[in-house]
């Protein structure tokens, strides 16, 4: 083995798990988990842990508690995904920028220049409008495509070792924060170039990003569970994402959709998030109340998906 190989991989991230900036969102998403963790550490100090193995022995609460115990694995897996993603590519991390950038240019050209959909009431260049719309979408689509294959992709692990399976789709929701960060970087840069200041609506950004995470997880958990059983979803997911890109108000305002279709339009779980994130970033026209419908869909999908996943979790190794 030559010296080149040995030195080539002294990465910037020498110490695994040192993605401190990634730690924040999770604690933010699951404060209850944090509580459980502390509680458990205390408990473990006084009692020897006892495991009971039985058909359907764990309640949903116990499973969530267990999830908290395996928090480190979640970080490790997310770190692995990030680390491995652009391994052996010529431009490396630059792909994380080039990719969305080209998508933005294309969308902006089709909707802004050719179809002239306008930007609603906001007076910003169309390219900026599209970029703001892409923020929510990029996160969502990355979670989805990652999560749907997450369990199939980790088959060998699932068959050989025990851990809460929910960690697999969850880790994809973490990894996608990198893409979100890149998008936010791009938009800040563009706003700076065009001299546009964020309005007070930016205060709502964390809230909408939170919903973005939940909606990504809602659909992602469903897809990961369904893909185990029906491999058809390996084909369905990319198709859904391609169609969804046009059915979501990324490069055009939702208000451009005819009134009679609004209800249907906002059944799309990501439509509300994209509208919300864009509004909080560049201001302009306030999102319509229809986004609440979208959020409602997200909430139902998330709760239902989570319960379904926890129900089938223990039999995953048998089905896969």
């Amino acid at each position, binding site marked *: *083995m030559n010296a080149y*190989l*040995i*030195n080539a*991989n*002294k*990465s910037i991230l020498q110490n*695994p*798990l040192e993605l401190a900036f990634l730690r924040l969102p999770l604690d933010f998403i699951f404060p209850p988990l944090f509580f459980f963790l502390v509680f458990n550490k205390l408990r473990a100090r006084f009692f*020897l*842990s*006892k*495991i*009971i*193995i*039985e*058909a*359907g*022995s764990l309640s949903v609460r116990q499973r969530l508690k267990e999830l908290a115990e395996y928090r*480190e*694995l979640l970080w*490790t*897996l997310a770190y*692995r995904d990030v*680390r*491995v993603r652009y*391994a*052996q590519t010529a431009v490396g991390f630059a792909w994380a920028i080039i990719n969305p950038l080209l998508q933005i240019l294309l969308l902006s050209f089709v909707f802004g220049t050719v179809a002239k959909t306008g930007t609603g009431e906001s007076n910003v260049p169309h390219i900026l409008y599209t970029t703001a719309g892409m923020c929510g979408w990029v996160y969502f689509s990355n979670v989805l495509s990652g999560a749907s294959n997450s369990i199939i992709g*980790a088959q*060998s*692990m*699932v*068959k*050989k*070792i*025990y*851990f809460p399976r929910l960690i697999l789709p969850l880790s994809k929701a973490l990894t996608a924060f990198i893409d979100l960060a890149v998008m936010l970087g791009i938009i800040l840069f563009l706003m700076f170039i065009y001299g546009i200041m964020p309005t007070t609506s930016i205060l709502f950004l964390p809230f909408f990003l939170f919903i973005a995470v939940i909606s990504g997880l809602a659909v992602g958990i469903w897809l990961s569970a369904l893909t185990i*059983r*029906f*491999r*058809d979803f390996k084909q369905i997911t990319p198709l859904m994402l391609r169609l969804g890109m046009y059915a979501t108000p990324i490069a055009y305002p939702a208000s451009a959709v005819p009134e009679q279709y609004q209800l249907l339009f906002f059944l799309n779980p990501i439509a509300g998030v994209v509208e919300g994130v864009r509004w909080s970033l560049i201001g302009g026209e306030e999102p319509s109340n229809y986004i609440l419908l979208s959020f409602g869909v997200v909430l139902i999908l998330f709760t239902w998906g989570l319960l379904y996943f926890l129900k089938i979790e*223990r*039999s995953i*190794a*048998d*089905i896969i």
Partner: protein
Amino acid sequence: MSKKVIRVNHISKRYIIGQGKNSSLYHTIGNLFKKGTPSKEEFWALNDVSFDVEEGEVLGVIGKNGAGKSTLLKILSRITEPTYGKIQITGRVASLLEVGTGFHPELTGKENIFLNGSILGMKRQEINAKFDEIVDFSGISKFIDTPVKHYSSGMYVRLAFSVAAHLEPEILIIDEVLAVGDKEFQDKCLGKMNDVSKLGRTIVFVSHNMNLISLLCKQCLLLKGGKILTLGNTQKVVESYLFDESHTYFDRKKSQNISKCSLLNSSKSEVTSLKFGEPFYFSVTLNNDFDSHRVYVSFLLNNENGIRILSSRSVDGDYYISKDEKGVVKNSFTAFYERLFLRPNVKYLLSIRLLEQKGHEIEYIHNVLEFQVEDIPHNPNIRFSGGYGIVANQPIWNVE
């Protein structure tokens, strides 16, 4: 009095066979509109298994392929759920069903230690604290910052095992993972296992290697067809595994001329496996029909690769089917092999030829009997020392 850390109570596990066929989206949706449930076949991988493991005990689990060993381990390590029954485990459990679970080829050795460690349930501080020890044990410190895809398979496995060897749970569940690396590394692993068991940790250990089982375990569990056949003292259980008669291939329908054919061990009981270095007999009883001709038998022994190891003819010892003074037919041949040290862990197949004195062949019966030689020394002073060759006889050495 030691306490019971694992209590297994009436565990059963059912698998549905043929589920794969009907699991596509098309079929599931189709089935929604069909009346009645689709026909499914059940298979019980484990059937009403109960046992206890005491603290500090090393329990060996043996059995043939398909006996339910892996299913038992999977249930104990919580990978799948039992269909019925309950298990109570007190203490932290780590299971090693494979070495290097989750290793990623693009990551460096160092990163993989962290990754694999946390997959196996180690905390980050724990890995940090033991990091140097792990690297030392693996003996590849020079390449620790190289992606593991550039490792040789030996280096890969050594690194993987080193992580696993430094787990410190109260209960360790191990599948046959020790069969990795070269002899030196294997000894190192064995030593580590011994250390771990001496520290009072409880181990459940599955292996096909009877030698290892007898070395490490005091208690042993023999599974067959999803049920416990024997449970108790290792020596006793291993014997009953070797004596298990369902091994034999001999089928009466195979030949009209033979009524019985068997392998006998040194104490003349019928067996299907031998210990290494054990004297043995081949025995065959013919039907009475050959009164007029001088009929003799020939034993032909092949190993599983079809290599002929020996052929012995009773005619060479001048033995034929004959009658004694009272007219009783003597038709049972035995051949005693006192010092034929067949190489262990290989399958052997016995074929028999029936011939007349003139050389005319009456019948050639292929593979009447199948047996195996286990890596357990018959005589504690003579162990199988490895090496090549189809037999492993020890010569009488001398140097002058």
